[in-house]
């Protein structure tokens, strides 16, 4: 099955629950198979599969709960791509243990979490991400920039304390 491991990883990050992730992936494959006629040859298959998974998530119970708490986000389409990060501080990323970073990513709002995963883990191009999320490339760039900034800010206190213990998992912030 194409993309199975990657889709499962992405689903688990979205739902933060093994059973829900499994249901989500299973439903994605069933929908993809049934709706393959709507896939246009020559377009991006990976983006198509991720879009099915994401749309399925958004209409799931957990997804609906997430979308009901949409944060006020005035910068969504802004051109603010500058990421202010103190250079000495960023060196500390080398010291981060994986669990700490995973905890910080878990606490991110889901729209930041998903775009970081698509860019950094799946190594999708901005165009692919735009297709997956059904947003313009400008939005991809600004959202990605703010996701990195937010992650950096949330890691700062941990790093300043030199904390390497895992942090408590938070709630699934709004999309």
């Amino acid at each position, binding site marked *: 099955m194409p993309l199975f491991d990657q889709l499962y990883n992405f689903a688990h990050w979205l739902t933060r629950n093994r059973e829900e992730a499994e249901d989500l*992936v299973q439903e994605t494959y069933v929908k993809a198979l049934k709706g*393959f006629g709507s896939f246009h040859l020559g377009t991006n*298959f990976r983006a198509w599969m991720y879009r099915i998974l994401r749309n399925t998530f958004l209409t799931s119970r957990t997804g609906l709960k997430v979308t009901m708490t949409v944060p006020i986000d005035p910068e969504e389409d802004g051109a603010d791509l500058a990421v202010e990060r103190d250079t000495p501080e960023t060196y500390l990323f*080398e010291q981060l243990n994986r669990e700490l970073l*995973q905890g910080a*990513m878990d606490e991110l709002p889901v729209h930041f979490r998903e775009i970081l995963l698509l860019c950094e883990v799946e*190594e999708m191009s901005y165009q692919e991400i735009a297709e997956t999320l059904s947003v313009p490339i400008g939005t991809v760039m600004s959202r990605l920039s703010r996701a990195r900034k937010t992650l950096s800010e949330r890691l700062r206190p941990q790093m300043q304390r030199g904390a390497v213990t895992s942090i408590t998992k938070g709630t699934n912030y709004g999309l």
Partner: protein
Amino acid sequence: MVCESWRTQLDTYLDGELPEEEIRSVDRHVRSCQSCSADTVARLQMKRTIQLAGRRFTPSAQFRKRVQLSIAPKPQRNLGRVWMFAAAAAFILVIAALTSTYVETRRDGGQVFSEIADLHVATLASSSPVDVISTDRHTVKPWFQGKIPFAFNLPELQNSDFSLLGGRMTYLEQTPGAHLIYDVRKHHISVFVFQERSLAARLDENSLPPRNLSFNMATWSQDGLRYFVIGDASAADVDSLAKLFKATSS
């Protein structure tokens, strides 16, 4: 603050999304500026850390199996009446004890059809679906020489709606085979050819393909070769192409 404008581009630069000209400019600056160079390394480190941390969850083997089964074909259930169901159930109970191998065969067959559908989907999704691109069967057929351990014939398509797009090698159950792609009214149809005896899954001479794959499919065995024809074209088109192949091979 001289470097501020450069730093706004660093993430896009590291994502590989800057235009060629700007990449060269940022390259030159980063090499000459110690501060931006350090910042670039740190951002790169951050990207790698997220990449490693993000690969966190792995599906279990049981779950993989469950999904495979859920998208694999299931036997048709068209017995609507309770008494018919009861009779069928009793009949199945009797024959199940005698023909357990048959059940295994059906299960294997279902998995094979599912894998064929996967191969068809994955190939069409590829940016280079075929390795030999030609509408000429006399070009495509010789291309397989030395690549697969058997020979087969391709049908003449004159006066038909089909056109050959090309072919590629493929594998089913670790067995090499031929994968041909045809076009008919903007639909793509795959034809797979394998050696029957090399396939672990045992298919009947005229195994019926499943009805819930969302594709139309035909399969048959002829001259020791197992053929599969699959596509989202109409069942009539899939059958027509299958007939052309059968006529060529006989």
